[in-house]
């Protein structure tokens, strides 16, 4: 219990530099202690999750209660509006579906939807990865790229740094460099989720040199066949390209 108290103090109070150093050193040198720290964090998460489940149950009851109160009388006009909306919807979908879209437009849409910001944690503390992410989100892509590459220089196996370096290079329109990182990501096996394929395809579609579109199509087909991350985009794009 003493260790749990010590661990809690570290996470709930702001430790001094010396205390933080001691704590972190103990994690790296004492496996039993590291396990207790991991348990503390996991137990907090599981407790948070259990509390969330209880709240959700409460919300569900409220929702069910309100749902029965909220039924609205249906008027005839609604049928006409619905019918008109359906016709317009069909026409609009047909327009969207059949109108040709360039690979570059698709890639740029993907960037807008997925690569505008990268996830930064709320912690006040900084570390190299978070610094890179903050630079990226401030649109300082050159600095962000330098930061991620510096992480890779000290440990070339950090997958997230590879991914973010590639994405930063893509934002800088340094396509060859972006492809270098995304291809490297693609060689990584055994990951739960790996967006290497879709990112390579986006880069090729945006670069749009002779042969790029055909290569992107091949990669997208692979993404679909192997059920990789980004499959829903790949399927949609293959229909349009």
């Amino acid at each position: 219990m003493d260790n749990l108290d010590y661990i809690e103090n570290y996470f709930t109070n702001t430790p001094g530099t010396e205390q933080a150093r001691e704590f972190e050193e103990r994690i790296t040198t004492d496996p039993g202690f590291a396990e207790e720290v991991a348990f503390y964090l996991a137990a907090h998460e599981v407790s948070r999750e259990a509390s969330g489940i209880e709240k959700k149950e409460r919300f569900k009851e409220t929702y069910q209660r309100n749902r029965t109160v909220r039924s609205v009388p249906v008027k005839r006009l609604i049928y006409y509006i619905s019918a008109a909306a359906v016709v317009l919807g069909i026409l609009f979908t047909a327009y969207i579906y059949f109108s040709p879209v360039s690979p570059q437009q698709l890639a740029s849409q993907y960037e807008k939807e997925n690569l505008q910001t990268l996830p930064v944690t709320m912690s006040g503390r900084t570390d190299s990865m978070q610094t890179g992410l903050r630079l990226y989100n401030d649109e300082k892509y050159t600095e962000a790229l330098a930061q991620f590459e510096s992480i890779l220089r000290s440990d070339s196996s950090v997958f997230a740094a590879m991914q973010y370096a590639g994405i930063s290079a893509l934002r800088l329109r340094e396509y060859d460099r972006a492809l270098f990182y995304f291809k490297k990501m693609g060689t990584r096996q055994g990951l739960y989720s790996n967006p290497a394929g879709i990112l390579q395809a986006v880069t090729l579609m945006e670069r749009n040199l002779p042969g790029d579109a055909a290569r992107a199509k091949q990669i997208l087909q692979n993404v679909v066949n192997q059920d990789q991350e980004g499959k829903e985009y790949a399927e949609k794009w293959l229909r349009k390209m």
Partner: protein
Amino acid sequence: MESAGSNRYTDQELIDQLRQSGTDKRRSEEQLFNRYIYFVREGMTKHALSEDESFNAYSDTILAALENIHKDHFEARASIKTYLYQIFHNKCVDLLRKRTTNKNTVHRAEMISDRLMQLSDSARSVVQTLIDKADWNRLREKLNELEEKCRQILMFWGDNYSDREIAVFLQYKTADVVKTSRLRCLERLRKLYKTE
């Protein structure tokens, strides 16, 4: 459609109430939930989610917002509605992605990253590896096996309530007593988790 009476408070008043402790807070949570409940319908129409999925996305949105408000991470740069809608939209998109890619258990590590990020790179990597190896289902089961009071105390702790607040809710004499009991409960959970 907003439920009756849910417009009585301004954003700021609602946030102030949510940051308070006690039973009023619980009422305010439900008020926030009711105020934008029509998002559920929007999730169904705009994102083609089922009612259950959309409801889940909406309640997860409220839970995430409550946590951020409690931790003072909500800076009120936008209205609560805009803030909630952004979270809700992302959750709907996540759900759609999960549905198509069948990836249901992602981002476990991200949920606890706030605390993990306090550690240096090398210490974090050690702890992260251990967390990745943890048997989460077993830990959940063991939490449910604890006696009710212990489970409650840990759930309040998981919800980031202070020991002082927990003392009020669960009628302990002081925050110090809560802390001692809470750490004992944690120790009990750890033993249960470790015992084969």
